[in-house]
């Protein structure tokens, strides 16, 4: 399937072969090849952590590959920094990171590509005018003078798209451009991308949404564990095939069989609201149950679980935990009452990266590791080894530091930390984000085991297969409200998607 031979060389705008990128201790790309035809929309898919982000950064000159070649229009290029890539006509929309929250929308769009007027001063009038025009062409009415940090996630995404479009690139890379968009906004984007294609622009599209891929892409390439897996024409591929290649094994053996019985109500949330983030959120969680909380990026899922577990304080509504009304001021209080939160960003919120496994795991329970008022290293060691054993963490010993572990094992350490406390309700925010396939399966198994032990699990997830396979029920949010709560029997991909899609600002109704 490595198919340089299928296409004539001159049709290829971009040809990448044997690219390897090494970070200290990690091989982020391993001998990856990829071709992009002129005027083609080429989808790149893979699980989180498969190497897509590194791949983009190599293409845009943020990282330099350690080996391999990149041919642009048949010429070998060396992109020593992002400016070179931009000059060569490669533009990218990044999933995160790329926004300057303190600056205006217009300035965000033209940062690094300023609208100058002689003798080289920035023309703010042109900047704003062009920004407004670009945003308009995306069907958006965002004020170019608004401050970026005050926009919603979806609006920021649109600005990022406008930014990439402003560069008139011949190769456009889009990393999850629709992740936070409404259906119409997505449609708008589709037509823009098709228009670009018609003008001869080549597009690399990275998306989780198969509907994006099937409605736009000409070809699709799969990456897995930093390696190239294969490339297919879109009409040769179907979602089952792609998923199998992405996970590397058949999908039905991937998710464990859940056996837990649903028991008494553990957690009840009613009328919960936090100004500006979400409102009127009500649901309940039972022992042995895995409850999904899903919706688009920016729908308010993380904010809801943060308010429940005391990270932030809700403005309205009540939370009832095991029959008692509670209101936590910090996660520690929640943990003490049996409500544990596994946060979304394990590197920033979950772990102390420079610390060892055992020190991470024992952190919430340090008071129980004391002997004669001093910490007992033996006790801490025991906790570390116990977690390693119980969760099958791949490490030489409990003394390994968290930053030396793979994503999946890091996530297990976070879990181990929470399990060392006496929690009964486990809130997991994107538990498998950026986790390799093997660890994913293991985490699913652990979740089922916990449910069988009588835990109630509230899982925030954006991955539809995950929600459909793991959850007993699913709360679907849109624009800060609960749009519906579905039982497992009623799960359909279309149903969940329809419930997640934002209501349109204009008169159109969702498809």
């Amino acid at each position, binding site marked *: 399937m490595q198919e340089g031979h299928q296409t004539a060389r001159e049709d290829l705008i971009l040809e990448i072969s044997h690219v390897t990128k090494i970070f200290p201790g990690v091989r982020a790309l391993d001998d990856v090849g990829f071709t992009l035809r002129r005027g083609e929309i080429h989808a790149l898919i893979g699980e989180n952590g498969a190497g897509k982000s590194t791949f983009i950064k190599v293409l845009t000159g943020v990282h330099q590959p350690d080996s391999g070649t990149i041919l642009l229009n048949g010429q070998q290029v060396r992109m020593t*920094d*992002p400016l070179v890539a931009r000059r060569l006509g490669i533009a990218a929309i990044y999933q995160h990171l790329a*926004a*300057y929250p303190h*600056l205006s929308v217009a300035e965000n769009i033209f940062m*690094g590509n300023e609208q100058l007027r002689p003798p080289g001063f920035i023309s703010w009038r042109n900047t704003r005018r062009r920004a407004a025009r670009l945003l*308009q062409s995306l069907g958006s*009415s965002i004020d170019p003078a608004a401050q970026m940090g*005050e926009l919603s996630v979806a609006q920021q995404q649109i600005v990022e798209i406008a930014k990439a479009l402003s560069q008139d690139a011949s190769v456009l890379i889009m990393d999850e451009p629709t992740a936070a968009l409404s259906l119409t906004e997505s449609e708008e984007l589709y037509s823009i991308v098709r228009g670009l294609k018609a003008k001869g622009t080549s597009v690399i599209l990275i998306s989780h949404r198969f509907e994006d891929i099937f409605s736009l892409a000409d070809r699709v390439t799969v990456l897995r564990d930093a390696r190239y897996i294969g490339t297919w024409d879109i009409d040769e591929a179907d979602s089952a095939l792609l998923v199998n290649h992405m996970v590397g094994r058949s999908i039905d053996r991937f998710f464990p069989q859940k056996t837990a019985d649903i028991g008494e109500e553990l957690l009840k949330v009613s009328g919960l609201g936090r100004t500006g*983030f979400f409102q009127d959120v009500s649901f309940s969680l039972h022992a042995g149950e895995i409850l999904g909380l899903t919706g688009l990026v920016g729908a308010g899922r993380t904010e809801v679980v943060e308010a429940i577990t005391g990270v932030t304080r809700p403005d309205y509504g009540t939370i009832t935990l095991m029959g008692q009304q509670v209101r936590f001021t910090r996660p520690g209080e929640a943990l003490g009452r049996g409500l544990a939160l596994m946060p979304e960003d394990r590197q920033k919120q979950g772990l102390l990266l420079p610390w060892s496994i055992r020190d991470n795991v024992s952190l919430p329970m340090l008071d129980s590791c004391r002997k004669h008022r001093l910490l007992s290293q033996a006790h801490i060691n025991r906790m570390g080894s116990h977690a390693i054993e119980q969760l099958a963490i791949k490490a030489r010993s409990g003394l390994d530091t968290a930053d030396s572990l793979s994503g999946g094992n890091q996530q297990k350490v976070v879990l181990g930390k929470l399990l060392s406390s006496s929690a009964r309700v486990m809130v997991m925010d994107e538990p498998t984000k950026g986790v390799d396939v093997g660890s994913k399966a293991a985490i699913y198994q652990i979740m089922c085991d916990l449910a069988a032990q009588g835990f109630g699990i509230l899982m925030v997830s954006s991955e539809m297969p995950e929600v459909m396979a793991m959850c007993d029920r699913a709360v679907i949010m849109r624009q800060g409200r609960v749009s519906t709560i579905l039982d497992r029997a009623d799960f359909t991909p279309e149903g969940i998607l329809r419930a997640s899609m934002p209501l349109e600002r204009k008169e159109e109704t969702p498809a």
Partner: protein
Amino acid sequence: MSTRQFKPLRLGRLLRNRELGLTLVLLALIGLIGLRNPAFATPGNLQFILGDTSILIVLALGMMCVLLVGSIDISVPAVMALSAMTAGIVMKNNLVQADTQVLVDGALTAATVKTSTPLPLLLLLAAGVGAACGLLNGLLIAYGRVLPIVATLGSQYILYGLSHLISGGQAIYRKDMSDAFIQFTRGNVLGFNSKVLIMLAAFLVLMAFINYTRYGRRLYAVGSNAEAARMSGINTRAVTLSAHTIMGLLAGLAGMLYASHDNKVTQDMAMGYEMYVIAACVIGGVSVTGGVGKITGVALGALTIGVINNGLTMLRLTGNSEFWKKAIQGAVILIAIITNVYIKRAHERRVLRERRL
């Protein structure tokens, strides 16, 4: 594009306009102090305050650049001392005295004229020394990965030491200064003190740089999101380096203003001044974490400090509380920054309330 829909946002921006708020606070302060001592609110005194604050403003502009990229520089006064001392020594060594006659009130009077190295050259030298110091700080921070506070704390010790070494223990006095240098901060153009004009020039140049050039905007980009800046091809280290160099250059210049104004250069010149500079920036709305801050705000922040300092001097002259001065100064700064926080929080709440769910 429906502008009507976003009107609330525009209104919010207007309310958030902290420059407006600061101006009001400033006027209120002037009014209050003026009530206690009418001599305070006279145009003459206000212009004096403006002149007196010019040096602080020049320094605060540089500090703003450094804070914007998320760094800090506490070696500022030592840079001032070293630059002024270097230029001062050159000036002293080249000093020529001549007795001439000048026309005073229509009559020829005997006078001594002192000339030395041309003033522009001296200014260039001081600015160069300052920029070199800033560059050094920048190198340590951007390329040596030394944390800004540690690096500039160390360089403060070093630079003061150097200015002592080169001075050989000798301060520079008025008698060692050329007339041009003494007059440097005393000229009067269109009714404005030349310090004010120099400050205005620095202000305008920096405003053009920060608001209207791509290099200036990069200061914001790096401070707002360094990772994103790196991904869009901005050399974040070079930007940090240049911010520190600008700070150094302005400190060198400010050192000359300070020396001319005081009629002397000592090796411990301006010790402790960095705190006022940082305070001016913070009151003016610059975030110490980087990415936020407006040049007009900084100027107003520095003026607020100037008004407080001068006001306390004037207040005490009619009252009798010399000993309360320091505590009041600390309390006023504290209250100012806390008020800022409350204003910002109120604004954030308003934005959240206006957000559509």
